[in-house]
Structure formats: structure tokens, C-alpha cells
């Protein structure tokens, strides 16, 4: 094992016991990034000098007897998070030269503990995509097979974990953007309940759906990082002011008597055989561990993708109106007037998928169509929420595949947006309902690609899904499998 292969919680012990310095650890990660980045392209911006300075500061802090869980730990962030003084692009040409004037709350909480920032990670532009191919900085490649996509939109955050280029990362999840790449890259990714983590300083895509979450090597690391970033923030008026439990106490390894629902709409014909096999094995494993498996139904599942693409694009068209070439971001050269300045700056700065979603969203909100599309979708959203509420009266959590297939090949779905959208079929309903879910490794396909398992919890039920995820993880070997890179 190399230093970059270890988990966060293990490295924390080494740092705390002074068996390792953050300088050594950070240098090991920087060397690893240098070595594998030409194959992976997980980073948009690397902060090498700052990382070494921060590592030295962390070492001083540890020497003074203060070693928090993240002190001296090298991490990286999706480039959607504002990082003061560091370029923040959201993978868009329109923000190519944007230097964040302040820190996102999730990052400032990590920074306060002394986390070391290695850089900013690739993603689909403005988090719009399922493959990390919609980046102005080129696609990220899957460390398990570099001909494949890492998933999206937090593809860089997942690939960096799988390629051991960072110890932990943050992603954001609007329709599956943490869980689907975690599934495709064989790591752990958790989308918390809407309102659990502050979104202050996170570049907005669809504000009624966006949530911030951790991406890590194992469930223990996931609980640990969630602990740091969760909690009320007066700067985000949608963050919820309820106490954050101690997530580590959920990691008991015990699921005896737990009721796990199996929604029949998620176990469809046409599920990839590797995914089907992984689910069958996971169900058997939970049964062996003493959980009770209960068939349930979420009857409106089939409408979730259509519902999502109306709501998310409508909100995006509104959120992205701020990129007008006036206060920040790209401005076109020599416009004839203000209108042309705005129209041309946006035309030159946005990529094709972003334009497509702005057009769809603007259409869905435009006069004469609002009731037929946006309002209808908001009503269907209520039906989808009610499905989950009804299911959670019978069970403690739900077990589903995270994605219908393992990672697909680069270029395979770029010409058909609708096919691309359908790759989020199992993750989108969770965002619409505002509830929490985790994806964790549960198998390897015949082609050597990871398969993820999704556990879905009640609102603020993060402890329950972490408890079940930990019990599963500890009784299997999947989290020890590594991409051969």
C-alpha cells in the first residue's frame, strides 16, 4: 500500500500519532496526481504550492496538539464550490478566469479543520450531465477503464477517489450527480437530505434539488466528512436548523430487524446482468445479516425523469440568467449594444448541453406553457414524494441499484440527450422527494467495472442509511477493490 491508498480515518490516526506528516502525505498525493493525471483528467485546477503551505501549517497545528479529523488531510473539491482566491470555473468557458471572492460554507468548515486543498475537480458544465463529457476542459476518464466515462456530473470527484488522487472529495447531487459517478467509479457517495448541508457558495443549478455531499473510499470516511459539513448555516436560507447527530455512532455493523424495502419499479427487465447479480447478492447478504426484506411499490417512478427535466431546466434557466457578461465571467468583444453583449457573451461562454437546458427551461416557463409543463411537473413531484412517504410507513430504508448499467463508453450517449437523461432513472426520484441516499460498491462487472448499490432513507435519515451501508461494507470485500492504475 502506498500512502495515497489509505482511508481518511486511517490517515487521521497516523497523523495524530505523529507517524506521518501532512507534508509527506500531501507530497505523496501530489506525486500521484502528476503520475496519473494524463490518463484521467480529474482536475481542472491544481493548487500545488498552496497545498504544501497548508500541509506545513497543518503539521504545526498537529505539533501543538490539535488534530481534528481533517487536519492535514489532502482533499479536492468539485469545481462548483467557491474557493477564495482560487479559480472556480464550474467547467464552463463562461467562468474560465473567475477567481472566487469567498469560500463556500461546506469548504470553509473543512478548511477550519485544516484540510489541505489539492485542487478543483472536473465535472459536467454547471453540473448538467451524467458522464463528465460536458466539460469545457475535456472529459474525465474512468480509472477502472479509461475508455469509459466516470459518471457525472461529479465525475472528477469520483475519479479522483478511484485513482487515489485525493483522500476525500466533495460533490453535488441534483439528479444523481454524486451517487451515479460513485457507482461507476467504485467509491462511496452520499446525497444528504435537502437542507442538511449548506449550499452557500455552491454555484446554483436547480435550487429546489441541489445538495452537497461527501465522496470517499469507505462508509466510515463518508460519515466522518458528512459530520464536518452538515448543519445549519444562516447564509443558506434553505438549510435546516435541526441538530446534527453523531454519525459515527451509526456505524455499529448491526442491521438485525431492520426493514429494507425493495421497490419493484427499480428491479426492471433490462437491468444490466452485472447490476442484477450485484443486487441479488446484496439482498441475500442483508438477509444473512438479519435484516427483513420487504417488497414495496413506488408507483410513480416511471414519471420521475420527465418531471425532473422540466423542473431542473426551468430552475436552471432562471439561475443561469446571472451570466450576462456584466459583473463577472466572459464578455464578448466589441458588442454593438447591451443586448448583443448579453446574447453573444452567453452564446460564446456556454456549451451545448447548458444551452439546451436553458432553452428547455425557458420554454417550460414561458407564457402559455407554464401550467402545461412546469406546474404539471410540480404536481407530479408531489405524487413521487407521496410514494416515498407511503413506503417509509412500512420500511426503514429502501435498497435499489444506483444506475441501470455500469459505466458506459465515452461518446456512447452524447448524440442522444434523452438516452443520457435516462441513465439517472434510479437516482432522480430521491432528489425530487428531497430525501437522502448513499451509493456504495457492491460488485464488479464481467468487464471489470464497478457496480453500486443505493440505499435510500427518510428525510434526515442519514444515520439509518449509514448504518446499513456500513454493515454491508464490513461484510463484503468490494470496498477493498482498486482500479489497476
Amino acid at each position, binding site marked *: 500500500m502506498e500512502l495515497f491508498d489509505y482511508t481518511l480515518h486511517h490517515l487521521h490516526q497516523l497523523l495524530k500519532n505523529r507517524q506521518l506528516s501532512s507534508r509527506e502525505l500531501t507530497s505523496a498525493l501530489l506525486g500521484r496526481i502528476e503520475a496519473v493525471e494524463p490518463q484521467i483528467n480529474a482536475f481542472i485546477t491544481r493548487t500545488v504550492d498552496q497545498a504544501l503551505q497548508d500541509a506545513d501549517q497543518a503539521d504545526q497545528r498537529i505539533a501543538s496538539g490539535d488534530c481534528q479529523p481533517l487536519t492535514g488531510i489532502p482533499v479536492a473539491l468539485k469545481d462548483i464550490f467557491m474557493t477564495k482566491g482560487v479559480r472556480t470555473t464550474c467547467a464552463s468557458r463562461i467562468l474560465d478566469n473567475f477567481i472566487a471572492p*469567498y469560500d463556500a460554507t461546506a469548504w470553509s468548515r473543512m478548511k477550519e479543520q485544516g484540510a489541505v486543498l489539492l485542487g478543483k475537480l472536473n465535472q459536467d458544465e454547471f453540473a448538467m450531465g451524467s458522464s463528465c463529457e460536458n466539460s469545457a476542459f475535456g472529459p474525465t476518464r474512468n480509472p477502472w477503464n479509461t475508455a469509459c466515462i466516470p459518471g457525472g456530473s461529479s465525475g472528477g470527484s469520483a475519479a479522483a477517489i478511484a485513482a487515489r488522487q485525493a483522500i476525500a472529495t466533495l460533490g453535488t447531487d441534483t439528479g444523481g450527480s454524486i451517487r451515479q459517478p460513485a457507482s461507476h467509479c467504485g467509491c462511496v457517495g452520499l446525497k444528504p437530505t435537502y437542507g442538511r448541508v449548506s449550499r452557500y457558495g455552491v454555484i446554483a443549478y436547480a435550487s429546489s434539488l441541489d445538495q452537497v455531499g461527501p465522496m470517499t473510499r469507505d462508509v466510515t470516511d463518508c460519515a466522518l466528512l458528512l459530520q464536518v459539513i452538515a448543519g445549519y448555516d444562516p447564509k443558506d436560507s434553505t438549510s435546516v436548523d435541526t441538530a446534527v447527530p453523531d454519525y459515527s455512532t451509526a456505524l455499529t455493523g448491526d442491521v438485525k430487524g431492520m426493514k429494507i424495502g425493495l421497490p419493484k419499479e427499480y428491479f426492471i427487465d433490462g437491468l444490466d446482468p452485472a447490476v442484477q447479480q450485484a443486487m441479488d447478492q446484496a439482498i441475500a447478504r442483508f438477509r444473512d445479516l438479519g435484516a427483513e426484506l420487504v417488497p414495496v411499490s413506488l408507483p410513480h417512478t416511471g414519471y420521475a425523469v420527465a418531471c425532473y427535466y422540466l423542473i431542473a431546466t426551468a430552475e436552471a434557466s432562471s439561475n443561469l440568467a446571472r451570466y450576462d457578461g*456584466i*459583473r463577472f465571467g466572459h464578455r464578448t468583444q466589441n458588442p454593438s449594444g447591451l443586448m448583443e453583449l448579453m446574447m453573444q457573451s452567453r*452564446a460564446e461562454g456556454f456549451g451545448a448541453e447548458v444551452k439546451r437546458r*436553458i*432553452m428547455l427551461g425557458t*420554454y417550460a416557463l414561458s407564457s402559455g406553457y407554464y401550467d402545461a409543463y412546469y406546474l404539471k411537473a410540480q404536481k407530479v413531484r*408531489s405524487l413521487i414524494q407521496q410514494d416515498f412517504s407511503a413506503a417509509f410507513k412500512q420500511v426503514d430504508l429502501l435498497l435499489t441499484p444506483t444506475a441501470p448499467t455500469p459505466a458506459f463508453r465515452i461518446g456512447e450517449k452524447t448524440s442522444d440527450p434523452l438516452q443520457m437523461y435516462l441513465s439517472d432513472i434510479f437516482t432522480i426520484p430521491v432528489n425530487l422527494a428531497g430525501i437522502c441516499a448513499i451509493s456504495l460498491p457492491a460488485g464488479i462487472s464481467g468487464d471489470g467495472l464497478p457496480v453500486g448499490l443505493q440505499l435510500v432513507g427518510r428525510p434526515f435519515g442519514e444515520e439509518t442509511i449509514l448504518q446499513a451501508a456500513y454493515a454491508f461494507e464490513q461484510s463484503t470485500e468490494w470496498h477493498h477493490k482498486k482500479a489497476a492504475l
Partner: protein
Amino acid sequence: MSISRNDIDHVARLARLALNDEEKDLFTAQMEAILSYAETLNELNTDGVIPTSHAVPLSNAFRPDTATPSLGIDLALSNAPDRSGSYFQVPPVIE
């Protein structure tokens, strides 16, 4: 669902997006396909269903009306494509 070139021109202008002919052709076809798919929602009877505005119950978030430190002019203008003193500079709005 059929989308005309006029619809696309209208929506592009509302969205302040200058699109070329190639993009207009592509988006016409793709939006038609995506909106046709979205119309599957009409299979559902939603009479009397209350639309969701937020996934969790939220009430208005108030804070005390007290001044707190802000970014300041230089930081707020630090990413401006063009500035004039303490202002963002843009082309003339009224000739």
C-alpha cells in the same frame, strides 16, 4: 408536440442566447423529442394535487436586521470584465 423555428427564435431571445442556424435546427429536433417524452406526465390525473415548491417544509427565514461585513467594492468588482471606478462598466444603454 411540434416546435417551430419561430418558437425557437422567441425562446432564444427570452433566454438571451444568440444561436446559430445549426444550433436552432438541432435544438428544434431535440426539444421536440424531450417535450414529447415529458408529455407522458399527462397520463396522470393531478386534479387536486398540491404542487411541490420545496422538498422539505420551509418557512420564511428571517434574520436580525443588523449590518454585517460585506465583500467590499474591490472584491465585488474583482471579476468584472470592465469597471470604471467603483462601478461595472457596460456599453451605453440609451443612445
